[in-house]
């Protein structure tokens, strides 16, 4: 148990104002730690300075680069390095927690600049990582400076052990399970309904796999409907769907957290047909917490989150026939569906922030055992000590 108030520095490599898994993880963690009485400062790149919460320090305007099948807004370079250094030297931190430190970003710059107890969380798990990890020998001394490493999933941990020859403790991403467990079933979303949430226009989210499976599913369940929530233009997507099946899709647009909770408790099945690029699958944790019965593709992140199918059904990734088979079997078997949903809801408790943040705090505690604070690495070098002494005379 950490009883004293800590000065914690979090570094988020991606632009604060674009939505994303890492950003919301850092935001939720920062807010949890602040509520627990700690003093938290987040360093992140941002486009719009005025919209930042009080605890975020702007590191500068991010640059858009293609990374891991999407466009990542990150930041590096000499000006960023100077900002990172001044943030570290004025922060008087007990500990630094760097997110995604293996990509060229301000997280990596912070490792280079700082000396002392540092913890790193690795989020990504993808084959595209290889390019980044090819520079492993350059990263090695930097990654080594981390007192403890956290991976958000078994898949992320494997990426780490395979490419950087170092191990990590697995701590899942957190959600506020209470927000999702309070959902109420809504009449218009009930029945033989399949739910999908996400940016459906992105191919890796896999909505087209579900629409390919629909002809078979509708033969066995004529009243089946698909409820799609998330940002995007339904028009472009609908052109690719069989005209006879178009009326089965219902687009809800962006929905709030409480609507999400209601949706999860109304639908028969939540479908996650993602084809890859997913390292944790926070949406599955939310679906489980909301009491939905989950059907997901068997990509490594989903497989490990559902523990090999124990807390939700898995189908062969990119195989719409297999998806149809699994969906039909579950639509027919109400008991099995309710059983999976009940087990899943219990399991979702391990993703609750109360559990997750406690584990992260005990990692902090162990990283801080040396008792030193965070300083600039350059201050500890021999010549700096020498010049300082000269100055004192």
């Amino acid at each position, binding site marked *: 148990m950490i009883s004293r108030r800590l000065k914690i520095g979090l570094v988020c490599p991606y632009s604060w104002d674009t939505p994303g898994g890492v950003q919301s993880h850092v935001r939720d963690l920062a807010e949890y730690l602040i509520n627990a009485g700690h003093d938290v400062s987040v360093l992140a790149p941002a486009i719009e300075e005025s919209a930042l919460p009080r605890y975020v320090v702007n590191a500068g305007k991010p640059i858009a680069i293609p990374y891991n099948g999407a466009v990542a807004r990150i930041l590096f370079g000499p000006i960023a390095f100077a900002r990172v250094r001044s943030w570290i030297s004025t922060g008087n931190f007990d500990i630094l927690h760097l997110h995604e430190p293996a990509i060229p970003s301000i997280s990596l710059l912070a490792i280079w600049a700082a000396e002392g107890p540092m913890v790193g969380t690795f989020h990504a798990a993808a084959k595209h990582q290889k390019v980044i990890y090819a520079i492993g020998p350059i990263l090695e001394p930097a990654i080594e400076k981390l*007192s403890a490493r956290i991976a958000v999933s078994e898949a992320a941990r494997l990426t780490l052990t395979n490419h950087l020859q170092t191990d990590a403790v697995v701590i899942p991403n957190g959600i506020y399970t209470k927000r999702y467990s309070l959902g109420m079933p809504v009449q218009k979303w009930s029945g033989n309904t399949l739910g999908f949430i996400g940016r459906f226009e992105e191919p890796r989210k896999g909505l087209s796999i579900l629409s390919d499976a629909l002809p078979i599913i509708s033969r066995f369940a004529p009243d089946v409907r698909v409820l799609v929530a998330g940002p995007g233009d339904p028009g472009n997507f609908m052109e690719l769907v069989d005209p006879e099946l178009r009326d089965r899709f219902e687009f809800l647009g962006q929905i709030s957290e409480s609507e999400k909770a209601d949706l999860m408790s109304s639908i028969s099945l939540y479908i996650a047909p993602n084809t890859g690029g997913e390292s944790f699958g926070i949406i599955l944790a939310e679906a489980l917490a909301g009491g939905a019965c989950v059907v997901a593709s068997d990509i490594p992140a989903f497989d490990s989150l559902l523990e090999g199918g124990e807390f939700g059904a898995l189908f062969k990734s990119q195989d719409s026939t297999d998806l149809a088979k699994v969906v039909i079997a579950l639509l027919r078997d109400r008991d099995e569906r309710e059983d999976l949903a009940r087990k899943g809801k219990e399991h979702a408790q391990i993703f609750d922030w109360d559990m997750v943040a406690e584990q992260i705090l*005990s990692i902090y505690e162990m990283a801080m*055992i040396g008792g030193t604070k965070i300083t600039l690495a350059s201050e500890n070098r021999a010549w700096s000590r020498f010049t300082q002494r000269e100055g004192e005379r």
Partner: protein
Amino acid sequence: MRNILIGALLLLVSLWYLSFLAARLDRLHHRVETSWANLDSLLQRRAAIALEIARSDFADPASALILTSAAYQAREAGVQERSSAESALSGALSLLLVDDQSDVSTAAHLLLEELKLLTAKIRIAIAIHTDAVSSTQMVRRKVGIRIFRLAGTAPLPLTYEFEFDAL
């Protein structure tokens, strides 16, 4: 003249690299020591809790005997046999951790809760320590470090083998 300059530059660069390597190794050695100190203190606390459980009414005489001897062995084990002694204690503790805890007294229940929290911490401490040890071993295999004896007289850290499933 030019050759001398290039030579001097090379010498400077390699000196800088050696000092960089030495600093890196020093940091790792330091981490091995602190992470071991942490793991050691957690394991000592576990042994103390095991003794307390053995003395409580929760343990029957036979398991109390096994638990007491395992706890003492874990406490007195040297560095070499520490891993196996601690694994033996984990095994002894797992004998007691039955699923049905309905007829457990509140005092024993508190002890078991504390043990559960401690076990989670020990897992993390082991992961951090073994990681520090394997990084250190890797860096110490580097040619520069071996030739210039940058490790000095520090002993090569031992890998701590711990049976996770026994926890």
